[in-house]
C-alpha cells in the first residue's frame, strides 16, 4: 500500500467522520455559542483536509486556501461573540 492510497482510504475517512460528528453538534447545539465553536472546529478540520488533499494530488497551491480559512475561522468566532454580546446589551436596556 503506497502513501497516496493510505492517505486517501485511511486518514481521509477518519477526518470526514470527525467532520460528521462535529456537524451533529452543529445541528443539535442548544445555544448559539455551541454552534459557533462547532463551526470553528469544522473549519479547522477543513484546513487539515485541504492539507491532506495537497499531499494526495501533489499540488502545494491548495495550501493558500488553508491559510485563508485559518484566518477566517478566527474572524468568524470574534464576529459572532461581538454579535452575542451586543444582543445581550440590547436585551438589558
Amino acid at each position, binding site marked *: 500500500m503506497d502513501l497516496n492510497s493510505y492517505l486517501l482510504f485511511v486518514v481521509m475517512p477518519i477526518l470526514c467522520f470527525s467532520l460528521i460528528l462535529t456537524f451533529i453538534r452543529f445541528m443539535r447545539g442548544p445555544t448559539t455559542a455551541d454552534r459557533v465553536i462547532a463551526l470553528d472546529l469544522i473549519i479547522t478540520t477543513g484546513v487539515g483536509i485541504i492539507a491532506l488533499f495537497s499531499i494526495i494530488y501533489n499540488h502545494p497551491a491548495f495550501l493558500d486556501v488553508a491559510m485563508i480559512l485559518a484566518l477566517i475561522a478566527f474572524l468568524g468566532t470574534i464576529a459572532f461573540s461581538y454579535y*452575542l454580546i451586543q444582543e445581550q446589551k440590547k436585551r438589558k436596556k
Partner: protein
Amino acid sequence: MTSLIIAILATSGSIFALIASIGIVKMPDFYTRLSVTIKAATLGMGTILISSAIFFNDFAVTSKNIAIIFFLILTAPIAGHIISRVAYFTGIPLWERTVIDEMKGKYEGGIENLQSSESEEQEKAKEKAGKTNTPKR
C-alpha cells in the same frame, strides 16, 4: 522512510481531530466542549501540516505551512477565551456537577465591569475616597 513518517504524522493528526469531535458531541457542558475543541484541533492540524511540509520538501511550502501553524496556534486560544467570556456573561449555565465557579458573584454588574485595569470612574471614586479619608493636618 519519509513516507512512513508522513503516514504516522497524518494518522496521529486525524486521530486528534477524531478525539476532538467525539468530545464535542459527548461532553455535557459548553465550557468542557470548548476546552476539548481548541487544544485537540490545534495539535492535530499542526501534525498534519508538518507532514505536508515533509512531503513537499520545499522552502516556500514549508514556510507557508509554518505560517498556517503559527496562525492556528496564535488565534485558537484567543477565540476560545473570547467566546467563553461571552458565553459566561450571556448566562449559559454550567454543568450541574461543576465543582467550583470562581467568577460567581464577582462581576454582578455585567460585562462592562470586567476589565483588566480599573476604569476612569472607579479611579476618580477612589481618589475622592482617599481624599476624604486622609486626616487633615
